Structures are given as C-alpha cells and as structure tokens.
C-alpha cells in the first residue's frame, strides 16, 4: 500500500512544531520521543506501520482547537485517532503527521433518561457508554465487535455498525449531535438532543467521513431502553442457497430479529476445532436472535421455526437456558480467533444484496481455489454485510500481496452484484485504491468538494479514503 512521501520540510521543523504544541498542552500530552511515538505507528490493520512525527493527547475541545490551529498554521497533516482499532488503517500515521488522540477525553457530560440521550466526550469507549446507563435499564445500540476498546470518536468517523444493527441501525442512525473542531480550529456544534439537526444534514455527512472533515470531541447519542430479554436459535443447512432463501423468507414474513449471523463450512470447521461449540458440520449455519419478553420471544421463534422447517434444515437448535444460548453464540464469537489460530488472516467487509448471496459465496470459493488461498465466511446475513476471512502466511514472501489481490477481487465482485466495498469498517487505506471501482470520477469529485469545504488545505487524514492520484493536486495545495 503506497503512502505519500513525508514532507522533508515538515520533518526538519519537528523541534519547532513540538515546541509550539508544548505551548498549548501540558508536557505529558505531547509525545515526541521516537521510542514513544512508535506506540502510535499502526491501528488494527497491523500490516502497515509508520511512526508519526508526534502524538498529542488533549483533554478538552479547546485544547483540540489549539492543536489544530497550530498544525493548520504550520501546514502539518493531522491524523485523528480514537482507540486505534480500525481494521482499515483509518488511523495509520505518516512520518510527517501529528496523531491527535482523543483517548483522554472520556467523560460522560450529561445523561437524560426522560429525553433518552447521553452526551459524552468522544474518547469514551463504546461499551462504557452502555456501561454508564445500563444500571438504569438503557443501552447504546451500535455494537461493533471491538466495542470493549473502540472509541465513540472512531465509531462516528467510520459510521460503525455491529451484529445488532439489523434492528437498531448503525452509528449514523443513533447520533443526534456533535461538537466538531475543524482543521483551522473553528468549533462547530451540529444537532443536539432533538431528533432533527435542522438545515442541510451536516451531521449525516460528518458521520462516516473517516476523520477527514473535522475532529469530533463531543457527541450526543440516542440511548434506548433495554429489551426484556433475548434468545438465539441455531439453524444448519446443507446449502448456502437454501440458507439464503430462509433468511429472505424470515425478513419477508415481517419478523425482525435483532441479528441474523451466517457462517459457512470452512468457518464452522475452524471454530469447532477451536471453540468446540458443538455446531453441526454443515454447509451453512444461521444464528438468529430475537428480543422481548419470554412470551414474545416464543412467539417470534415459533414463526422462525415454521419458516426454517419448510427449508429442511440439518438442525434447528433452540436454547432452553442461558448456558445453551451462550453455546449457540460461542462459535460465532470465536470465529475470528479460530481463523487466527490456523494462520494470519485478512478480514473483508463488502456488502451485497441478500439475493446475490449464493452466487457470491460460490464465486469466492472458486476464486480462492484458483489463487490457492483458503477463505471462510462469517457475516451479518440480514443486511448482506459479508466478512470473508482470507487465510495467508505473513512470513511467506508474496503471500500478503496474493491475499490483498484476492481480497480486492472479492470486493470488486461485491460491487459488480450491486453492493459496496465496505459495510462497516470504512475505507481507510485498505480500500482506498478500489474506490474508482464503485464510483465514477464525478461521484468522487463530489466527495472531494465536501472535503474542500470543511478542510480546504486537505490536512486532516489526507492520504485516506480516496485514490492517492485522484487527490494529489488537492493534497499538494
């Protein structure tokens, strides 16, 4: 993956830049010793690493604004960072950038159950937002699998989803307002504890802009009353096609599970060997979870069972108690770890129309066989968000490149059938150069123009999201 060459002029001014930053931040908030900046050299896309020029850890919106004003004035690129859990390289530094980490800004500023919102500083982790309200019977719905570590700032930047977004939507559907600091230090408040932000929907375009439009320092989030309970079932099929039809029939019947997860045979076998969840050895496995009171759950599961049985499943497993429910989820939740036991893996994130599922799975199998790489599929079937896991050996010369090429082909396939490159992980650097597969030049140009408005000098996270050559002239400006 190509990154722009660092600007020698910026590198040579490091001492001056650090001195300016120390002028507005406490000493412990400016990290510039090369031994320490290495801690920020990558995010969860660990194949790519580069230590930044410096990292800053401000504690307030005003400190963020002060840092950005300095970097803007000195024309230093800034890469915002939440908790560094991006799978797409969204927080990957360049050698001439300042990492702006929001981790120290993690306070709850206001909770309001009567109006069902919470206002937090953006460095707060996803799970601890729920943690702040769950004793009172509430939760924050988006639940990316990194939720223990990932920050709300990163969730907003990537418009993160999760297993339960089939019912509750993704970050953008649960975000009411933000405090945003623009690259020139301007502080803007958009939206608030009311349902419509008003005017042109700036909040909508800020969410999912991968830290390129501004640094979000505070967020007003919608919180929901916790459902009375939840229960999963497991259904095994001997054909991907039939499993796909079953998903479609459940959705058509008007039942709205909170999650429909899908695993294919390679993934089932890998997780069985690793987690021993007792899954059937079949072609496709669905985990379907519904919510409500015990009687409501029974009613929904009876409908789901009736639909599933018309498709002649290998197994329909219900959970009689908490322990059985946990075992149904065990394999799914261990899937990434299980694949990681076998080898290094790359996790993709394309979304496809649900109707294309059997075709896409068959093609992925064929393409894997052609290039000699194993791939397992685990994904959110209700919304078509796939997570193919391609196995490769990072120590074997050429394997990473082969894996990346295979991954790119899978993503092109997703676009070809009417889907998209990324459903919830974001583009980052990982899918940057594939953007022209999905978008025509005019479509990309329209997005560049949005960045031109928020960050005319293209200093915020500049080498991400878009093909480098397409943005070269703007970044040079």
């Amino acid at each position, binding site marked *: 993956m190509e990154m722009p060459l660092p600007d020698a002029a910026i590198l040579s001014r490091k001492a001056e830049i650090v001195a300016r930053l120390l002028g507005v931040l406490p000493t412990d908030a400016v990290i510039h010793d090369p031994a320490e900046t290495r801690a920020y050299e990558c995010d969860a896309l660990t194949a790519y690493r580069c230590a930044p020029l410096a990292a800053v850890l401000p504690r307030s919106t005003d400190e963020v604004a002060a840092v950005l004003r300095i970097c803007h004035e000195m024309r230093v690129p800034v890469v915002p960072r939440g908790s560094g859990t991006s799978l797409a390289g969204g927080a990957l530094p360049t050698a001439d950038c300042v990492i702006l980490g929001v981790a120290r800004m993690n306070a709850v500023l206001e909770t309001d*159950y009567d109006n069902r919102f919470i206002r937090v500083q953006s460095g707060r982790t996803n799970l601890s937002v729920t943690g702040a309200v769950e004793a009172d019977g509430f939760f924050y719905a988006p639940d990316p699998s990194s939720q223990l570590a990932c920050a709300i700032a990163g969730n907003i930047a990537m418009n993160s989803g999760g297993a339960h977004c089939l019912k509750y939507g993704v970050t953008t559907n649960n975000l009411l307002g933000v405090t945003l600091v623009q690259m020139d230090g301007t502080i803007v408040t958009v939206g608030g504890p009311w349902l419509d932000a008003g005017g042109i929907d700036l909040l*909508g375009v800020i969410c999912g802009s991968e830290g390129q439009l501004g640094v979000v320092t505070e967020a007003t989030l919608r919180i929901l009353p916790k459902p009375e309970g939840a229960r999963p079932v497991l259904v095994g099929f001997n054909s991907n096609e039939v499993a796909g039809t079953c998903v479609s029939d459940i959705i058509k019947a008007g039942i709205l599970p909170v999650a429909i997860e899908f695993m294919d045979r390679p993934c089932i076998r890998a997780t069985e060997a690793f987690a021993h969840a007792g899954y059937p050895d079949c072609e496709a496995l669905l985990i379907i979870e519904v919510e409500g*009171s015990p009687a409501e759950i029974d009613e929904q599961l009876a409908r789901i069972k009736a639909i599933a049985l018309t498709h002649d499943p290998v197994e329909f497993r219900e959970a009689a108690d908490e322990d059985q429910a946990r075992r149904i989820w065990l394999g799914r939740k261990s899937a990434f770890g299980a694949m990681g036991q076998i080898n290094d893996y790359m996790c993709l994130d394309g979304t496809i129309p649900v109707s294309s599922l059997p075709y896409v799975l068959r093609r992925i199998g064929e393409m894997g066989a052609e290039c000699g790489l194993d791939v397992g599929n685990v994904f959110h079937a209700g919304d078509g968000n796939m997570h193919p896991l391609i196995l490769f050996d990072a120590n074997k010369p050429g394997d990473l490149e082969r894996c990346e090429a295979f991954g790119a082909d899978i993503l092109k396939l997703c676009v070809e059938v009417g889907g998209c490159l990324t459903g919830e992980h974001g583009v980052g650097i990982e899918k940057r150069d594939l953007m022209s597969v999905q978008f025509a030049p005019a479509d990309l140009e329209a*997005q560049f123009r949005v960045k031109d408005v928020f960050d005319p000098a293209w200093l915020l996270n500049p080498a991400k999201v878009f093909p480098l050559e397409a943005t070269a002239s703007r970044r040079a400006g």
Partner: protein
Amino acid sequence: MRPASEAEVCDMVQAAGPLVIRGGGTRGIGRAVGQVLETSGLAGISLYEPGALTLVAQAGTPLAETEAILAGERQRLAFEVPDLRPLLGRGGVSTIGGVVAANASGPRRVQVGACRDALLGVRFVDGRGEVIKNGGRVMKNVTGYDLVKLLAGSHGALGVITEVSFKVQAMPEVETTLVGDLEEMAGLVALRAALRSPFDVSGAAYAEGRAMIRLEGLAGSVGYRRQALAAVLGGDWDVMEGAASADLWRRVRDVAAFADMAGAVWKLSVKPSDAAEIVASLAALEVQAIYDWGGGLVWLLVPQDDAGAVRVAVAAKGGHATLVRGLAGMTAAVFPPEPAGVAALTAGLRAQFDPRGILNAGIMG
C-alpha cells in the same frame, strides 16, 4: 420544464438560470424564485426485492404508486410520510423524490428514524449539470462520504434528485393504540414514560386533549405490551385497534386538526421535555399545539405573525422552528437561522454543489 430523463435534467440545468425544483409541489416550503423544473417525468420503480427489503424508484414516481406496490407485498415505507396537502391548501401528486428532498417523516420517527435513515442511495444532478450517485441499494454501506444524508432534507438546494433507493419495512400483523384523556402536562409525561419503557412504542403523540401511544407487531406481542405498558403508566387507557388506530395516526401525521384553522403553522424540533414549557411561554399569543415524537416535534398554530416570538421561545430552550404555513404577507424566514459556523459550512456546500446559485436559491438561510 418537465424533463423525461436524467440526461434531460442535466441539459436543462446546464442551460438554465434560477430554477425552482419541484416534485409534485405538495410539500415544498421556502420562497425560491425562478423557472420551475418538475421531476414528475422521471417515473417508475426500477427495482423491488421484497426479500431484501429494498426498493429503487425514479424520483418522480408518485408516492401513492410506491406505497401501493409495497402494500402488494405487505410492506411499506417505515417512516410514515405525512400528507400535508390539506394543511398547506395544495393539490397535486406527491412524488417520492419530493419526500426525500423534504426528509418527510411521520410519527414512527421515534422508533425507526426519519426518511434519511431509510434512504440507502441517491442519484442527483448537481448545479453544474453533472450526475452524481452516492450510496446504493444495500443496507450497510460506509464507502466514501455519506452524501445520501446530505441530500435528504436538502429541499432541492444541492441538486435535482433523480433516483432514490430505500430500505422498506414489513407491515405489522396488528396495530393498537392506547388512548388516554389527560391534561397536556400529564399526557406528555405519559408519552415520555412510554418511550422509556422496553415495549417498543412506534408512536407517541398528544393532540386534541388525548395522549396516544401506538404499538405494532405480532398479535401476541402487541397484546402483551399493551397490558404491560398500561400497567406501567397507570390510569385509564382506551384501546383502539386496526383501522381506528390507523385513523388516529393519520390525523397526527397530517396535522389534520390545523388544516381548517386559520393561522401560521410552525414545526418545532425540541428536546421532548421542553416542549410544553415552550408552548406555555407563548400562551399570550393564543397558540395551539399538537405534540408528536413524544414531544420532540411540536406543530404550533399561531393566529398572528409573531414569528420573532416563536423563534425566541425555541431558542431560549434549544432546538429550531420552521415556518411550514405562513400568513399572507408574512416575511419571516421559513427555515431556522443557523449559528455562524454551521451557516458557513452550509453555504460552502451549496457553493460547491451549485456554484452558479441556481438551485432553489433563496431557501434555507
């Protein structure tokens, strides 16, 4: 002008001076001036996959046609589009593109979100006459910037929407509404209590002296939640089922109570628990209110002009007010004023998407 294809839209926009962009002209607000460009010539459903809950339609497709096709599969647009024609004293055929341009969203907003939340993709022609597409037809998509949201509710100021795709919803097996004759304050407290409960309320409104709380879903589930919710709320609640319930919500959705009454109509977006206080602070103006979204949306009927007083009352608590139906000769801004930072960004976006300033110039700030 009534283009028959997207290509014609491009040609017309490139050649045009100031344009007023219109779907069916049934819900547009603001005082744009120029030649009318109507999208009703771009009609037809291009794709409908009930099993994937997705529908793609040309922008000029009549809303009624879209809803009828969905109803054929027992599906619907989840966000419950208001029909404001009686309120605004207009005729015409509402189009699906106009719905998107206005981000028109009804009572179910509290449960499933607005039009913008159901919108998966758009194609539009910007002020340069170029076709731009964003989003797509899949439910999860974070590829590039979300211009889909930007276009929803943009009232034609960023481009002429030519195609839209939606996530749709299955119709519920049953719907039931709890109706309580309550004083305004008690009624609004009950709405908020219902929305705080785990019983998945799909409508919470107070109008014409009654609090109304809607539940939808499978028959057994709705029956259970109705009893559980009534127990939590206490007091006496009547139960309206099926068509009677649907009629109640149609009245709320369409602001029917104000349709035949004289006066300006404002749409206030506020923190739900502030709603009653804001309305009370305007009591001297003899205003009347319909509360939807648990109080988060207030439809306010104001007999006289009094625009300044309305805006001041909302600003005192936070939120914003839009003038949906003015009085003859009223000159107050239709759209709410924006803080400087937001206004600068909005103006910047409009200048980028419409550098000649020809698209619905003069609306939204």
